[in-house]
């Protein structure tokens, strides 16, 4: 195992890529009312970043990867039963 030491440097540089996920661009996040969801997969098919997955056998049946969800709101607009809403993102 090689040893590493920390150095102070100037300018934009990274050896860990924390800024690489686009989830931290999000200003609002989608919130699903699972009791009204019909598991039709419309949101999954329309999501432009492909972060939604429908799990038919789970109670929380819409799983969203928030590392990459940008909060664009497409899912809330396409949902035929309007069970997805956008809420303010709090970090």
């Amino acid at each position, binding site marked *: 195992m090689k040893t590493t030491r920390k150095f102070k440097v*100037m*300018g*934009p*540089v990274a050896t860990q*890529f924390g800024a690489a996920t686009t989830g931290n661009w999000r200003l609002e996040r989608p919130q699903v009312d699972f009791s009204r969801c019909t598991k039709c997969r419309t949101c999954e098919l329309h999501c432009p970043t492909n972060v939604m997955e429908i799990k038919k056998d789970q109670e929380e049946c819409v799983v969203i990867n928030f590392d990459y969800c940008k909060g664009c709101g497409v899912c809330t607009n396409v949902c035929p039963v309007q069970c997805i809403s956008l809420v303010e993102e709090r970090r």
Partner: protein
Amino acid sequence: MSYKMLDGNTAAAEAIKLARVKVIASYPITPQTVIPETLSEMVESGELNAQYVRVESEHSALSVVTCAAMAGVRASTATASNGLALMHEIVGMTAGNRVPVVMPVVNRGIAAPWTLWCEHVDTMCERDMGWLQFYCQNVQEVLDLTLIAFRVSEDARVLLPSMVCLDGFFLSHSMQKVTLPEQAKVDGFIGEYSNKNVYLDPTDPMFLSDLTGNEEYTEMRYQQKLALDASVRVIEEVFEEFHKEFGRKYELVEGYRTEDADVVLVALGSMCGTAQYVVNKMRAKGQKVGLLKVTVFRPFPAEYIRRLVGDQAVVGVFDRSAGLGGEGGPVWYEVCSALRNKDNQVFHYVGGIGGRDVRVETIENIYNELLAIKAGESDRHTEWIDVKDNALELREVAKNV
């Protein structure tokens, strides 16, 4: 030490060779073409042990050179005019990533009107991009300031790139007697290149120039601001060491017969030689005129201007670029700002653009106007000092109407 007859372009190439640059990528453009030509011949003959990368544009040239330096070698390019304009995007990359590239820029106007000839607008457009800028009066200064720029840029307190600006044709194509320093002495002065900050190394990877959010961006710009501030002291130290080693003295701003001057002209570049001649000529007639020669424009040495301009002096500033749309040109703004807490009147002059010669009479006209203002005899101020009377009636064309 030896003498040679060199033009400004060859002097720049000699300096790059003396700095033992390892990677060169440069795209030819008048009046800079002789620099890449000379360097490619030096590489071909084995006189310079470097890799010469042929590129398809200036944008690529500066990209290659910036990344080569990140990878750990001294690298250089040269450009002019529209070439520098095409580099603009990478100009920011080089400075923001803190890469100490040194680049001679042969000053030429930016089209349109298409011109091949001298004007400072090309480098003035890049003045706030985080590079240091040195302006040369003669061919010896091209050689010396290029060597000095390598040393200053690579200093751990600076780590910013430098443009060494030389007037198109007036310097780039003017044959002058130049003292060439010995290689061993230059080696001792500049030293080996090493990456003092970040680097590109596949065995120890870093991600350079990653996306930076608003929580860190201001701080990174501030790092650059502090480095430019600190570079004033570094330049002073390096000028002093250069004087000791090579016997030629430089100052960020050089005062020429300014001590008791009624009237001071601020100028930069090759016109300073003519201006010094005029100062001597007018002094011989008892007229108290002086010159401030700005050698370093970035960082702008405002403290020097304040120190060298007497409280009672009337000041003229000669911009070799038009400063379109503003109240004056870039040098005038800086001088006004430097003198903002003093009572001096500061008058703006535009001239010598698109290759128009800055003649003895041009500078005499400025001094005479300023002397008359100082004496309270006249308030005449001719901002465009060498514009012709027929400016609005230049050309006629036949139209099919």
